[in-house]
């Protein structure tokens, strides 16, 4: 690829060169002919041949001017001078290889970082979704009174569908997992139960067969399934005759009616879709329709009618929800909603972090530009005479600025090319670093838009860092520059001011980055040191969701879980085995609850608590202490009274000053019209259940023997490294029921680490950028101070001759550096103060204006600045007064 490009370029160059020569030759010949004719004419009028020729030349005027005028028209014109400039620039860059290398690498760093981050922004935020109807697809989110997203309830969804006028299609999705059995092997797949019109929302066409028809949404219809292209290929080898055949899912036969097109997987990772037989399922005996209105487990997507805006849809849905709140105050009192484009819905909170990072790399690039501008300024000084002479000889300023800009552009484009390579590598790096479940991560890469962005950024930087030096050094103050003592002149002072300004801004920009990185880092450290409440070390987790004919009743589930737990407990190296419906740091169900004997509230006023079901050994397996009362045990089974544990937070929240033991609570369930009561038998310590950054919230734990879930997670505490247990665990489950696959095999530590992956990603990248910024700023300060010392050699020599000591000279140079740095720090602190506010949503436990971070950043930068100016300052002290004075 690369070689071809150069070959083509070389050929084009050569042709231009050859052609240009022949054009010039023709022009020359034509003008010569003209001269000869004129001379002949003159001779006819009686001049001597010599005279005639001279007169002809005279009448012709300035030969060079005519030729130039012709060339302007005939030659490439602007293009030709551009080519000249490029050639000249390239020559200059080759001649000053050191400068070129440093400048190109500096820019490459900046451009590379920008390319890498932009490629993520592009894939995640900018690239439209790859669905035929992409721009009309919206997500309808249900919110609670705090504005947090909750899942859509089936009853509400049906009302939305019946009452809205804005959607062409409104589809409900219930994402879950399922066991796919083929022969002897079972596999756990991500499955979505969707309303029949689901595929119409996206506008996709089946690869094979058909999608659902409305009748299939209703109860009693044959069970049908649509497979993803991936599953069809992977499990069935792309067999085109699969349509119409039957496959077994959760022990039940489903008829394959179609295959979705390649690449269609919504929700993410879904491998098959089935229609819901009823949108209000009965999950257990405790469920009734009234509660179903308040029990959400769906998400909703809609296709807007043509011409309807997201805003219009949002307004109408808000009105419908308001009506529902009035109609069903018990369940809907705290339900609100929001309509957003599907893209916004998918990207969610990642966009804040991405935009922050994009801003950060832009700052890095600015600093890189400042450095290169500095280098250019320093070089402009040495080229000052050349430029002055050319100005004096009549070159226009525009022409010179253009030439200098072309040089800058060359540097910028070279930097951009190297930066693209860096960025390419950076994209790979980013893919590895991205948090788990980062939206649309699979599409991150370098595409045309990223290339365009890089090119644009390169051109932009060329102008940014090239323009000021170009304007400065072509300032047509010719006398000033031509004077031998030009470097002490006013022009020099002005240049120095520009240079100082660059330093000040570099320091300010770096400080902003440092403080941003510091804040993210501190908040990440806070997260890391959060009191989890449980011990994640040496704990293996996996999930079982048994299905099939043997799993119809609660006791069948409980029995299976107990059996598996018992079997695993006997494995060598295993200390304890616990079972829980949802692992800590994984989103799980909540339930309303009320305490017996308290005044009866309407259900919408019932507080919500996390709802967990555990085996007796669970707390031992994850090292959560029982603070009061007793633990659950094997006696808390179906034949015993319903028992429940509560956590410390719940006690503080609902039983302040009371003894919770022995109190009875209801979780909203009724049997024969009577509330079902659970007795509180113990209190356990708090754990971080939801997110690392969320304080423990009230939580209840039922016994899995009395209240099992259809899918539960196992925690296996071991004396050996957890991964070494996996084969034995797999085998143990297989021996009990080979149709039940184990899924989500992970170490608990991994879960904890993944819970912090977004903050880790943010803080890692921003720290990286801040580090680069710091390095660049140090290089910049070093460069300017070195230059300043060289420039002031005479002055320093004079001072020393007049009795200045080493100390005084050091103070002189370091003082200059400190003044500039302090100015930059002041500017940076003010900017950071204003800017860090935007990142407050990304912080945990740290104030956006955290004083230690601000102070630390400033101190670090000051130290680095001092280090950077130490070498130049020392060189200044080595100035020999005699040599310095003789120089003049």
């Amino acid at each position, binding site marked *: 690829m690369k070689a071809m490009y150069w070959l083509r370029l070389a050929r084009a160059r050569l042709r231009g060169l050859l052609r240009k020569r022949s054009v010039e030759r*023709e*022009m020359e*010949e*034509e*003008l010569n*002919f*003209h001269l*000869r*004719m*004129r001379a*002949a004419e003159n001779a006819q009028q009686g001049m001597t041949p010599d005279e005639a020729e001279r007169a002809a030349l005279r*009448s*012709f*005027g*300035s030969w060079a*001017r*005519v030729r130039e*005028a*012709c060339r*302007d*028209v*005939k030659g490439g014109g602007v293009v030709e001078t551009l080519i000249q400039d490029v050639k000249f620039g390239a020559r200059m860059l080759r001649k000053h290889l050191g400068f070129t290398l440093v400048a190109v690498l500096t820019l490459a760093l900046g451009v590379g970082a920008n390319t890498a981050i932009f490629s993520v922004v592009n894939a995640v935020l900018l690239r439209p979704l790859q669905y035929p109807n992409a721009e009309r697809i919206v997500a309808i989110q249900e919110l609670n009174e705090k504005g947090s997203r909750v899942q859509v309830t089936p009853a509400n969804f049906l009302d939305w569908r019946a009452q809205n006028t804005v959607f062409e299609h409104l589809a409900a999705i219930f994402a879950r997992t399922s066991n796919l059995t083929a022969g002897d092997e079972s596999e756990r797949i991500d499955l979505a139960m969707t309303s029949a019109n689901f595929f119409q929302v996206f506008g996709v066409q089946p690869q094979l067969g058909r999608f659902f028809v409305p009748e299939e949404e209703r109860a009693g219809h044959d069970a049908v399934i649509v497979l993803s292209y991936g599953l069809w290929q992977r499990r069935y080898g792309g067999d085109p005759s699969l349509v119409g055949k039957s496959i077994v899912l959760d022990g039940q036969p489903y008829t394959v009616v179609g295959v979705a097109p390649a690449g269609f997987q919504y929700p993410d990772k879904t491998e098959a879709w089935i229609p819901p037989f009823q949108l209000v399922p009965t999950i257990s005996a405790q469920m009734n329709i009234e509660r179903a209105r308040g029990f959400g487990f769906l998400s909703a997507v809609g296709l807007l009618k043509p011409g309807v805006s997201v805003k219009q849809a949002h307004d109408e849905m808000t009105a419908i929800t308001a009506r529902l709140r009035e109609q069903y105050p018990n369940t809907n009192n705290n339900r609100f909603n929001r309509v957003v484009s599907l893209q916004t819905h998918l990207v969610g909170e990642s966009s804040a972090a991405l935009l922050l990072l994009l801003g950060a790399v832009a700052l890095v690039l600015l600093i890189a530009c400042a450095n290169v501008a500095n280098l250019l300024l320093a070089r402009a000084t040495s080229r000052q005479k050349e430029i002055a002479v050319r100005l004096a000889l009549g070159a226009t300023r525009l022409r010179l600025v253009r030439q200098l800009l072309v040089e800058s552009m060359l540097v910028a484009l070279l930097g951009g090319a190297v930066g693209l390579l860096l960025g390419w590598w950076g994209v790979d790096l980013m893919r590895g670093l991205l948090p788990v479940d980062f939206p649309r991560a699979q599409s991150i890469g370098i595409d045309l838009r990223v290339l365009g962005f890089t090119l644009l950024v390169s051109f932009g930087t060329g102008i940014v860092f090239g323009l000021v030096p170009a304007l400065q050094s072509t300032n047509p103050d010719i006398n000033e520059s031509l004077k031998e003592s030009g470097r002490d002149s006013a022009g020099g002072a002005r240049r120095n001011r520009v240079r100082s300004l660059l330093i000040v801004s570099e320091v300010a920009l770096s400080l902003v980055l440092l403080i941003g990185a510091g804040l993210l880092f501190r908040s990440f450290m806070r997260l890391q040191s959060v009191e989890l409440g449980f011990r994640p070390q040496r704990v293996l987790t996996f999930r079982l969701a048994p299905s099939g004919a043997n799993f119809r009743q609660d006791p069948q589930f409980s029995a299976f879980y107990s059996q598996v737990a018992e079997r695993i407990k006997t494995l060598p190296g295993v200390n304890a085995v616990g079972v829980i419906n949802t692992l800590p740091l994984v989103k799980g169900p909540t339930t309303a609850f009320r305490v017996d004997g308290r005044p009866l509230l309407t259900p919408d006023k019932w507080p919500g608590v996390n709802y967990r079901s555990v085996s007796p050994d669970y707390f031992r397996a994850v090292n959560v202490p029982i603070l009061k009362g007793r633990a659950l045990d094997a006696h808390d089974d179906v034949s015993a009274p319903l028992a429940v544990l509560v956590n410390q937070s719940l006690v503080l929240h609902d039983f302040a000053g009371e003894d919770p033991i022995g109190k009875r609570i209801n979780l909203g369930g009724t049997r024969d019209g009577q509330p079902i009561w659970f007795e509180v038998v113990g209190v356990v310590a708090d754990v971080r259940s939801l997110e690392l950054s969320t304080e423990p919230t009230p939580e209840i734990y039922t016994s899995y023997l009395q209240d099992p879930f259809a899918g539960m997670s196992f925690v296996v505490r071991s004396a050996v490294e957890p991964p070494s247990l996996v084969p034995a665990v797999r085998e143990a489950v297989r021996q009990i029921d080979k149709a039940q696959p184990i899924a989500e095999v992970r170490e608990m530590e991994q879960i904890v680490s993944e819970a912090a992956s977004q903050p880790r990603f943010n803080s890692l990248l921003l720290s990286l950028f801040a580090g680069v910024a710091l390095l660049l700023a140090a290089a910049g300060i070093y460069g300017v101070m070195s230059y300043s010392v060289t420039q002031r050699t005479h002055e320093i020599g004079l001072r020393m001759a007049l009795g200045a000591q080493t100390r005084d000279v050091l103070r002189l140079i370091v003082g200059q550096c400190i003044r500039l740095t302090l100015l930059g720090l002041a500017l940076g602190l003010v900017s950071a103060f204003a800017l860090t506010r935007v990142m407050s949503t990304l912080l945990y436990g740290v104030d956006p204006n955290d004083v230690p971070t601000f102070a630390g950043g400033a101190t670090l930068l000051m130290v680095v600045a001092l280090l950077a100016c130490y070498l130049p300052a020392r060189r200044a002290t080595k100035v020999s007064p005699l040599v310095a004075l003789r120089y003049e």
Partner: protein
Amino acid sequence: MPKQDAKLLQGTLDMLILKALSLGALHGFGVGQRIMQMSAEALRVEEGSLYPALYRIEQQGWITSAWGVSENNQRAKFYRLTRAGRKQLQIEEENWERLATAVFKVMQTT
């Protein structure tokens, strides 16, 4: 030799060149000569204007050039009016006439 007095507007020069070539192909020197003849020695086209103008007009596609042999047996580049050039000349003549009449009228008014 009369001093050239009339400064030619650029558009006018182009028109004159086209007019000069309308009678047949000429080399650059010949174009200058022809204009001088036609203007009864009143208009002398400077070389510094003539050749750039020729190149410009050529780029417009109104004339084409080819190497040939001059009356005194030298290699010379000859310019020839194209069809587009002839049309252009017509347009410019009309424009010129209109302008000239208008200017004349203005100058007649006392």
